């Protein structure tokens, strides 16, 4: 029997497979297809202090080996989440994280304070990397100072696990990771989407209503792997890797590059069962390679 469990601080995960925010709804959307409890964790949709309608349609463009989205954090706000969604999803026997988003530091604090009260939520993912909102979002994640300051303020009010989700739209992601680690982040997850764009040559119009959007899917995987490797070598806290993971081989590549856990995102749209298939296939890989514990291969990249 192989050991797939990993830890972030004192929190145990039954396996390193989680689902990425914005690609898995609140878990319930997938109940017909999988047993969500088989996952290491799920990260629910980006949650803000107030209701957000998101950006106008069209919000999506299919691109080579991936897609662009410009959803813009559509959600009903944290109070709605607490009253209506949390009571339904707290039954899950897996780690349910809330992705916390905001336009101002005060917004982030207000959401984090409310989520802190929820017994069955062991942590938050601090989203300082959404490319699809006009104010806040990615702006917090593209400089060391602002990334550090929002992490510092949230650390004061939020007592459980804080994962900071990093933007790839920066020159030096490792320095951003170090700056949030210094302010008390328990983990970093990367990458959020890469800022991209799609044009319709016939109409000479952008495909997305917002012109630009976030690129995800296998197209971003090499960039994500490189960044996970760089961040793994720069920080001591666990790194959560994501970006174009479609199968267990992709997931294992991220783990070898330094990820303690991984998130499956866009792949959920194509195969709603892919996340649990990845758990099973990682187990097979470990048996085949005689790996007793997944922790043996975290960051085990053989450079020479």
């Amino acid at each position: 029997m192989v050991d797939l469990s990993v830890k972030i601080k004192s929190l145990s995960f039954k396996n390193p497979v989680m689902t990425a925010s914005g690609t898995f709804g609140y878990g319930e959307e997938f109940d017909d297809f999988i047993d969500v409890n088989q996952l290491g964790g799920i990260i629910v949709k980006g949650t803000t202090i107030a209701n957000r309608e998101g950006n106008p349609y069209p919000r999506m463009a299919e691109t080579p080996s991936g897609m662009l989205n410009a959803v813009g954090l559509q959600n009903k706000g944290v109070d709605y989440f607490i009253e209506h969604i949390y009571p339904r999803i707290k039954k899950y026997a897996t780690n349910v994280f809330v992705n916390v988003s905001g336009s101002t530091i005060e917004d982030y604090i207000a959401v984090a304070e409310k989520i802190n009260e929820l017994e069955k939520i062991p942590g938050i993912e601090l989203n300082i990397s959404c490319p699809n909102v006009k104010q806040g979002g990615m702006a917090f994640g593209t400089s060391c100072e602002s990334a550090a300051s929002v992490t510092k303020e949230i650390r004061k009010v939020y007592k459980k696990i804080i994962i900071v989700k990093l933007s790839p739209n920066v020159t030096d992601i490792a320095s951003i990771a170090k700056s949030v680690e210094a302010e008390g982040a328990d983990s970093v997850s990367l990458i959020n989407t890469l800022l991209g764009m799609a044009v319709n040559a016939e109409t000479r119009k952008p495909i997305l209503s917002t012109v630009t959007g976030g690129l995800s899917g296998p197209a971003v995987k090499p960039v994500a792997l490189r960044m996970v490797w760089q961040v793994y070598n720069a920080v001591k806290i666990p790194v959560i890797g994501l970006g174009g993971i479609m199968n267990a081989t992709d997931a294992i590549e991220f783990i070898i590059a330094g990820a303690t856990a991984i998130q499956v995102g866009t792949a959920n749209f194509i195969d709603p069962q892919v996340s649990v298939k990845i758990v099973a296939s990682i187990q097979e890989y470990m048996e085949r390679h005689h790996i007793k514990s997944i922790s043996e291969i975290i960051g085990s990249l053989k450079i020479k």
Partner: protein
Amino acid sequence: MKKYIHNLTITKNQKLSDDTFILEVIVPSDVQEILPGQFVEVQVENSTVFLRRPISVHDFDSKTNSLSLFIKIVGEGTRKLSTLIVGDNLNIVYPLGNGFTITEQRNVLLIGGGCGAAPLLFLARTLFLKQNNIHILMGGRTDIDILEIEEFEKYGTVFCTTETGCCGEKGFVTDHSFLKSNIPFDMIYSCGPLPMMKAVAAYSKIRNIPCEVSLENTMACGIGACLCCVTETTEGNKCVCTEGPVFNIEKLKW
């Protein structure tokens, strides 16, 4: 309604015209129900197409469990699907979305534009079984766009318009002379190009006839997770894949 993901075997690929065809699969008997207006998300295997393709249910026979999909070739994904042959695999996530409201013993009008007629056959058959008096109005650019008239004629009276005038009356569906007869329709159902459905919606509103339209926004997941396919409604942005694809026009901001 429970959703499934299944690998099914294609039992028919019937070419209707140069760019339209019908794929048929038999779904397992544990699939209890599929409703008119619902859709499936089809995986396009062995191609560079990344996302699934949402395709409306053209017909479903609950006795034989045969599910048919009416597909128009519009891009690489649908072109690849057109090359599938009997015995090939088709991976689908289904049944998705809400479906049309089924009336009983009413005067109903179905308006389809081009391949937008796809979900209306199953609807017509279902309404026929509920003793509705069915009128079907089909529109297209030319006669090539008007498909399966004989199929529709099994369930109601069919009228046609084409922009060229080569089939039925010349003009748009909303120009058809039979609409001026002021038949007291209890319900209008429509699927087709957006400008056509908006014209149908305007026709219905003036006459206070309830009207349902089926939208086909681009989507990724089809199950309400990605929030990409939204349409503006009186209650804010709603996912076409879960709250639709069928909407009462009163809910839309048209």
